[in-house]
């Protein structure tokens, strides 16, 4: 049980987030209405995605330095789970945009660029499926992963800041970020970040355990 405390923490935090997310008092701004509460569910998906892709790139680099197949298993699992959360973030974002921005797929730079970034990571997953040899697959996809991460950061952090974006807070600088979100919302937002990230790590460990079992003849 001592090893699983963080899973319990994830569940408790998410229960708090779902209850408080619908009941906490939030400022009503413009056409958003109550849909600003999406902050507690849509944004953490992206935090999960970034966490997973960071784990993935670190393990890809470790693979390239030591050629240890276990690192490749971790990197590919993290990339898969990260893409999954990216798709969830994109899907929730399109639904939200439909009723606040007046269109499902708008010309918002952040929406467009994340779509491209997710497609790049889907290309990574398809690339992995197309190579049968384990070592060759690990090596080529690790190199591709470095490119994918190098594109992810400019696409989702830099370009949306340089042009006008419909995303709130996108046009301001990170230095004023503490002024962008209302104080009461932060009491739910930060637990939401931690809770959802722990959930994504949980899912990620399940996938890693599965893949290690699948390749146990090689790791033996």
């Amino acid at each position: 049980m001592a090893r699983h405390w963080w899973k319990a923490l994830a569940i408790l935090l998410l229960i708090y987030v779902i209850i408080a997310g619908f009941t906490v008092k939030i400022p009503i701004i413009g056409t958003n209405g109550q849909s600003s509460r999406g902050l507690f569910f849509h944004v953490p998906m992206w935090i999960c995605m970034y966490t997973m892709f960071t784990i993935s790139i670190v393990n890809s680099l470790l693979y390239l330095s030591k050629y240890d197949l276990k690192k490749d298993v971790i990197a590919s699992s993290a990339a898969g789970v990260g893409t999954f959360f990216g798709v969830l973030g994109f899907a929730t974002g399109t639904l939200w945009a439909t009723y606040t921005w007046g269109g499902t797929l708008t010309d918002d730079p952040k929406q467009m660029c994340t779509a491209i970034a997710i497609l790049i990571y889907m290309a990574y997953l398809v690339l992995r499926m197309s190579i049968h040899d384990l070592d060759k697959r690990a090596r080529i996809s690790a190199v591709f992963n470095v490119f994918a991460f190098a594109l992810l950061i400019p696409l989702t952090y830099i370009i949306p800041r340089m042009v006008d974006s419909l995303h709130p807070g996108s046009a301001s600088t990170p230095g004023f970020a503490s002024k962008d979100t209302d104080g009461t919302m932060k009491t739910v937002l930060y637990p939401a970040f931690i809770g959802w990230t722990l959930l994504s790590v949980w899912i990620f460990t399940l996938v890693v355990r599965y893949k290690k079992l699948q390749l146990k003849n090689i790791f033996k």
Partner: protein
Amino acid sequence: MINKAFSFCLSLALLLISVLANAQQQNTEKGPVNEFFRSNDKIYVIVGVLVIIFIGIVLFMIRLDRKIGKLEEREKNNP
């Protein structure tokens, strides 16, 4: 293996087509679905967001369930 990659690409293409098809309609339209999502200060948008996340996690679990089932099958046949 090829089959898997193909079905993956196909589902991706279908997802993109459905998103693009939706993008054509400007959302000032009436209709029961739009009225429902706009009612009660748009709170049902967030309910929809949570439902999407839940469906996503459930689909992920079903996929993992099937994969583990196949692995168990393999272990049973050649232990």
